[in-house]
């Protein structure tokens, strides 16, 4: 389990996150939702050890994160940030780099790493695109390649910042199914999502951030019934009989 204990964090004098406490257990798919600028990406960076909290602490299975070396954290926690620039790599090179935290100097990818990377590409349906430069792929295919890299990292936890960006609705649902499978296989998954019906329909728990504070953390039905979604977003979510959620404006 990763635990945030009264964490405040940010990039300047004013913290973006304020006194946030929550846990990410293994075996669950948790969605993180909130308006733009509410601190979702910052929360993920803190959980991944990329950003040190100004106050409070992050604990990974009883060990404070700050006591772990970066490669030790990366072996346990995979973090996919939002894509800003397209790396000058092929799909296979990108996916193979998911094995980087598992290597010691001089870092050479061995047969096991190649096999794991190949399996990750096959799982994402990318086996025919291994030699393709990322710059020549569509946004959706690049996103799949990045997720394959996170799979190759073979970590206990996967943090994803807006993983459904660039994906059409069919691929969004396929991705959420994959994340569900990963959670069932024992991994802890935390995904920042903007699509509230998708988040509420597919997650075990939903975390709701508003202006840097965690204002809700509960199962989708309980959070939906609490009225917090309307308070924060100004819309209602309506559950259907099949356990799906829809907007009511």
């Amino acid at each position, binding site marked *: 389990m990763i635990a945030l204990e009264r964490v405040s964090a940010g990039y300047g004098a004013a913290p973006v996150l304020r006194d946030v406490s929550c846990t990410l257990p293994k075996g669950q798919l948790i969605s993180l939702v909130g308006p733009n600028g509410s601190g979702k990406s910052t929360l993920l960076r803190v959980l991944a050890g990329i950003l040190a909290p100004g106050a409070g602490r992050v604990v990974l299975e009883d060990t404070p994160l700050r006591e772990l070396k970066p*490669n030790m954290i990366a072996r346990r926690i995979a973090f996919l940030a939002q894509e800003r620039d397209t790396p000058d790599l092929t799909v296979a090179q990108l996916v193979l780099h998911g094995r*980087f935290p598992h290597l010691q100097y001089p870092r050479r990818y061995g047969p096991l790493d190649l096999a794991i990377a190949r399996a990750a590409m096959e799982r994402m349906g990318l086996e025919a695109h291994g030699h393709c430069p990322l710059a020549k792929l569509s946004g959706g295919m690049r996103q799949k390649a990045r997720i394959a890299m996170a799979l190759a990292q073979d970590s206990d936890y996967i943090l994803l910042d807006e993983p459904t960006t660039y994906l059409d609705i069919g691929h969004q649902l396929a991705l959420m199914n994959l994340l569900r499978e990963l959670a069932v296989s024992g991994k802890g998954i935390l995904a920042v999502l903007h699509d509230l019906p998708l988040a509420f329909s597919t997650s075990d728990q939903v975390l709701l951030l508003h202006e840097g504070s965690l204002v809700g953390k509960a199962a989708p039905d309980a959070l939906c019934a609490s009225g917090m979604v309307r308070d924060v977003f100004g819309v209602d979510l309506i559950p259907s009989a099949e356990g799906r959620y829809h907007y009511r404006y």
Partner: protein
Amino acid sequence: MKNSRRSSGRLLLLGGLFLLASCLLSLALGSSRIPLSQILRILTGGEGEGADALIFRHVRLPRTLGCLVCGAALSVSGAVIQGVLANRLAAPGIIGVNAGAALAVTLCAAAGFSSLWAPLWAFAGAFAAVLTLALGARAWGASRGTVLLMGVALNSLLNALSDTVITFRPELAALRHDFKVGDLAALRPATLLPAGLLAAVALLILFTLYNELDLLNLGEEGARALGMDTLRVRLMFLFLAALLAGCAVSLAGLLSFVGLIVPHTVRRLKGRSPGSFLPLCALFGAGFLTLCDTLARTLFSPYELPAGILMAYLGVPFFLFLLVRTKGGHARDRA
């Protein structure tokens, strides 16, 4: 992945043959032509103290070795700096790294230190310059384009400082001239061994760090998410790149564009396989500079054109071509 390895193997063979041909031309051609058969005899100890043997040992061989060291060092230094700064237009001769080395060597000469120390002074100057640029860019959150502009400004400032030193110490003007044009004719054999050894060590270390260099492609956050201590790794790369640039500058002065032309050419030859990228840069860089130097001293015989001038004639059009190609293309503006 197998195809990529096969393609890299072919490119390494091509680079090796190009280097060998350039070396043989450099050793054979000049004001006095030395046939290849005689070169072989001299190399195997069969030719004693004839005029050709003396020219070979005291002129051609040191100059060719100097070309190899400078070409390999500058092209690998360029490839590394481009990777660390995430800007393909960043080359040691453009962003002030070579100018920092030249300023340090000028100060070294002005202070009366032996030229044997020149490689270390040049390294210190190059490292100070690239560190200033990298830390400044980090502190101000500069974009890739801004980093390049900062580098160009730094380059101008450092060159102005060198010229200021020369203004007050006019007896060093000849040294400054040699530095500015980048001339292998001014190579001092005494500095070849220390500079060559330092460059060889830096190259060997860098050849083992190809996955780290490749990971910087993912950006700061992406590399850190995969467990890389990016600050430490970037500093290490800049240290080694500055060491290479310093060695080259201490031997041949300001040879612009080698660090720009060669990494780009290697990429265009599809040599983007991480493991072979830097060795290919070294092979093609060494061969290219050796060939340019041979052309520069033979094309207009009996006059010798400094290699740096010929490189500029080739490099400026290539640089402009790259500027046009990368206009608005962020994805391509990566190392």
